[in-house]
């Protein structure tokens, strides 16, 4: 497993302190209400009644707790945003929720298809829980489900079966609002960006949004949709006046729109290099062998994902006229 760089914990703490300073409620107020459940994963309160289980940069199926997961507690019920890379991880999150509130979970919202965000879904399959995803999530899950099962089975103790692939019951093609009691969540589907089916979730009560993998921090961005689309989407989103966001990877919360800068710098830098390579007649293999990651030193997992990103960017950009 790959460890985060030493300074990332410090950065995270600073970001959390910053966010706490702006909020009436203390971040330390995570005292469990009910000791009814174990083992519960540790969560951080990043805004009033918004909790995050931070992840650690690693390659899918090579570690646990990779993505940032979260939940928002309303007066009526709880909305869960992403469920982790395994049923065990989903159960530990479920347990943390039960220790925090006696409100039931009513929604599980998946920001996108990737296993580190979605394979905990099975822990929440029960009456009263509705699974929500982008309108294109079912197709992505249908296309990739089998390969996820196969890849997982190559890692001891991570074996999965078809019951682990939980499809959304409700899909979102246009922005919808969910009322969880006393607070309204706005669920927005995005055009092809990190994937072709990213969702973001805004809590207007605290002006905090879960942006899924539209924003990467402390984990190299991974292109699985469209580099052009992703840059466009982030540039548009930057103009939305949010206070804090929960990124898909990195600290539990980060200031907006500063949080978009590293991802945007990597993507625009990469796009420039790949366009130049194509323009001078270079091929895919030479592009992958020669194009370095922009700001490589700041990104964990460059060695695992950058070459793949060059390929994805090349395959898209070679069709530009």
């Amino acid at each position, binding site marked *: 497993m790959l460890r985060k760089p030493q300074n990332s914990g410090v950065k995270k703490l600073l970001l959390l302190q910053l966010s706490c300073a702006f909020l009436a409620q203390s971040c330390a107020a995570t005292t469990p209400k009910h000791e009814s459940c174990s083992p519960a994963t540790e969560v951080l309160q990043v805004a009033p009644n918004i909790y995050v289980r931070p992840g650690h940069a690693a390659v899918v199926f090579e570690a646990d707790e990779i993505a940032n997961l979260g939940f928002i507690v309303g007066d009526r019920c709880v909305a869960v945003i992403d469920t982790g890379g395994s049923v065990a991880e989903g159960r530990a999150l479920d347990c943390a929720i039960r220790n925090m509130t006696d409100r039931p979970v009513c929604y599980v919202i998946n920001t996108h298809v990737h296993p580190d965000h979605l394979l905990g879904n099975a822990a929440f399959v029960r009456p009263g829980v509705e699974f929500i995803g982008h309108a294109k999530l079912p197709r992505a899950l249908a296309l990739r489900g089998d*390969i996820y099962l*196969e*890849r997982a089975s190559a890692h001891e103790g991570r074996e999965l079966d078809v019951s682990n692939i939980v*499809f959304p019951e409700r899909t979102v093609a246009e922005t919808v609002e969910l009322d969880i009691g006393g607070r309204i969540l706005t669920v927005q589907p995005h055009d092809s960006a990190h994937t072709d089916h990213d969702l973001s979730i805004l809590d207007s009560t605290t002006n905090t949004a879960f942006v899924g993998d539209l924003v990467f921090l402390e984990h190299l961005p991974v292109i*699985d949709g469209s580099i052009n689309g992703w840059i466009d989407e982030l540039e548009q989103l930057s103009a939305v006046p949010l206070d804090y966001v929960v990124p898909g990877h990195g600290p539990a919360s980060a200031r907006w729109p500063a949080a978009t800068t590293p991802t945007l710098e990597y993507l625009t830098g990469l796009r420039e290099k790949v366009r130049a390579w194509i323009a001078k007649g270079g091929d*895919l293999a030479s592009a992958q062998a020669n194009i370095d990651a922009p700001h490589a030193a700041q990104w964990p997992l460059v060695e695992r994902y950058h070459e793949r990103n060059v390929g*994805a960017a090349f*395959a898209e950009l070679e069709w530009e006229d």
Partner: protein
Amino acid sequence: MVNGPQTKAFLCLLAWPTLVLMLAPVAGEATTAEEDMLWTGGLRHAYFGDRPITQSDDLIVLDLPKRAENAAIVPVSISAQIPQTDERYIKTIYLIIDKNPGALAGKFHFTPKSGRADLAFRVRVDAYTPVRAIAETNDGELFMSRRFIKASGGCSAPAGSDLDAAMARLGKIKLKTQGETKFAEPTLAQLMISHPNLNGLQMDQVTRLYAPAHFVRHVKVSFDGEEIFSAETGFGISENPSFRFFFVPEGAGELTAEVIDTKDLQFSQSLRVTATGQQQLAQE
């Protein structure tokens, strides 16, 4: 021979899940002999019978990454070590990915007018597997360049791009030459075909049905009516197939690419090549 490549591909498709399970435990730590089990145990005879094959990099050199993080788009390049002359030339290159369902990714044909039998394209790789390029000369000799690649899941995983965008652009072709065109010398050309190349291996988890295969099966490129490169391709070729190859223009002329897919849809594109440059003509 009874088992033609088509039959073979079909059989492999049926046997695929079992095969993967059988082979999974040895992948990664196998000896060359173990790695070559599928080749020696059947593929070799299915495609080449008892014909002698020389394993060496003297005639062609196969180049591909040792490890591919994106197994759906793995760049492959083959470089010929001899020029194409009327007396001696490479007639056909076979690209075989042992553990892929449908091991034969493609058969690529060259002529003396190709100038060089160099070729670059992209493949899907389904498992840790040997990959072999086998060149057949005009006098019937076979030479094999073999490599091993660590990649998995390329056949059933989508390339990761936007499927809707790919379908909307179906059949669009880009044809161009690279670098300066010098008459009577090998000139590098690139053919890009916008096609999802669906391989029939992506299962719908709800219906448990496979999306039907739909891929480019034949490509032919000619210069002023004379064939310089053609290919019979399988679903091991990545989506949006892209081929780089050489041709020798004796003077100004028209480079034409004709493409047929498994639904018998036909696409074509022409490029006017002159001493001063190139111009892609309107696509039919």
